[in-house]
């Protein structure tokens, strides 16, 4: 009965669309008009995203963009944070913007280093606050070894109303042929965690093409009895003028988060059959710094999962 109603409603809706569509426009021979959209390629910033489902996966991105540095994004926000820090290494910047704790292996991120949105984003999506309360050391060795010089960890924060916490650390590990230091993003949940690493980039991001080519999706099985969120999406090396991360699912749900020291962690407990539609970074004025569509990648991920 309800399927019949859906069919009937969709037919009505399709007819209404057809009835209200305008006349086809007359084509001019001029170049296409601009509609206000800023293409990603012209923006000049990159971000990387590692999507992690399951336990203890290690993701190592080996590509390093070699193109010329892009100019700093203007985006109407005046001088950006990145412009001030220049080519400073990402890790040095993270250390500068984190404070030591009584535990010498643990530092805590300074959330004030994140630009503040000066636009109303209340209706953009459900906000997931990344809070810095109660830092605790990471409870597992993410690289699996006992004597690997990974420390210190920087506690980024915990996603409010969830059990997921985020950490950053730097890996230098000859055992797995890492010749340049890796910046790793660890997610801890009560029953385990996951880690994604990629080559450490300057605090100033490099190549907008890396937004696409550097995207990595990980999909691991969930061991029986483990209670973890359906989906954890982490952003480890955001452009420093990112004021808001937007993650949209293809069922219409959208989540937003203010990053902390260039990192964000969005947790989805009830993914259901939804997939990721797109991720977007906004600067302090709400301008799009970077955008990435995930539908194709998500479908590919699902197909792999089905084959497994």
């Amino acid at each position: 009965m309800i399927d019949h109603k859906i069919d009937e409603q969709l037919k009505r809706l399709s007819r209404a669309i057809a009835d209200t569509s305008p006349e086809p426009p007359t084509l001019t021979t001029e170049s296409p008009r601009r509609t206000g959209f800023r293409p990603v390629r012209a923006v000049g910033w990159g971000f990387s995203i590692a999507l992690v489902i399951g336990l203890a996966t290690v993701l190592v991105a080996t590509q390093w963009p070699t193109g010329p540095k892009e100019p700093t994004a203007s985006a109407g926000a005046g001088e950006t944070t990145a412009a001030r820090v220049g080519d400073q290494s990402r890790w040095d910047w993270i250390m500068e913007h984190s404070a030591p704790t009584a535990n010498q292996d643990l530092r805590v991120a300074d959330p004030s280093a994140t630009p503040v949105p000066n636009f109303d984003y209340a209706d953009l999506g459900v906000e997931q606050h990344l809070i810095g309360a109660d830092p605790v050391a990471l409870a597992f060795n993410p690289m699996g070894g006992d004597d690997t010089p990974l420390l210190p960890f920087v506690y980024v924060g915990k996603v409010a109303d969830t059990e997921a916490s985020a950490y950053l650390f730097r890996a230098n590990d000859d055992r797995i042929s890492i010749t340049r230091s890796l910046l790793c993003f660890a997610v801890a949940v009560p029953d385990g965690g996951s880690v994604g690493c990629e080559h450490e980039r300057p605090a100033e991001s490099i190549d907008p093409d890396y937004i696409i080519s550097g995207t990595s999706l990980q999909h691991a099985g969930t061991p029986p009895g483990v209670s973890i969120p359906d989906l954890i999406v982490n952003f480890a090396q955001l452009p420093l003028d990112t004021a808001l991360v937007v993650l949209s699912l293809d069922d219409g749900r959208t989540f937003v988060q203010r990053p902390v020291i260039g990192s964000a962690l969005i947790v989805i407990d009830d993914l259901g059959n939804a997939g990721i539609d797109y991720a977007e970074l906004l600067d302090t004025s709400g301008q799009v710094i970077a955008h990435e569509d995930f539908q194709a990648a998500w479908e590919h991920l699902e197909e792999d999962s089905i084959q497994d």
Partner: protein
Amino acid sequence: MVGMSINKDVALESDRQLYERHGRAVIRFASSLVGPSDASDVVHDAITAMIASRGLVGAEDPKALMYRAVLARARTMQRSAIRRRRREHRYAESIMTADPEVMPEVAEAVARLSPQQRACVFLTYWEDMTPLQIADHLSIAEGTVKHHLARARKHLREVLDD
């Protein structure tokens, strides 16, 4: 040099004829993706860019080529969360104005679907295409079409259940 100009003009005319033949269907398709208020811009930009780059003449299925160009342009337009919200609102409003029998929840739910999902819904319910035909038109896998339709229906089922 003059000869090249003449040839280009001839080709352009043929492209325009192809566009005029399918323009009505293309603008309806664009309306299903972005709503009537943005459809003209999407069609204009997509088709003029296509004609400028490769043209429609000689394409095995010019209508499908135009559909793909329009879908790509619509997805590009999606690239602003703020603008997207406003567009979704306008989209749902225009549907409900055209047919008050369409439930507001359904119009809003469809407005929030991704452009590719909306394309699959519209081509199924307006053009009566099969998943295989939609897959050919949009150059995506048949399984993806079925996937999109299943997701859209599941989403609507949840809306209607509430």
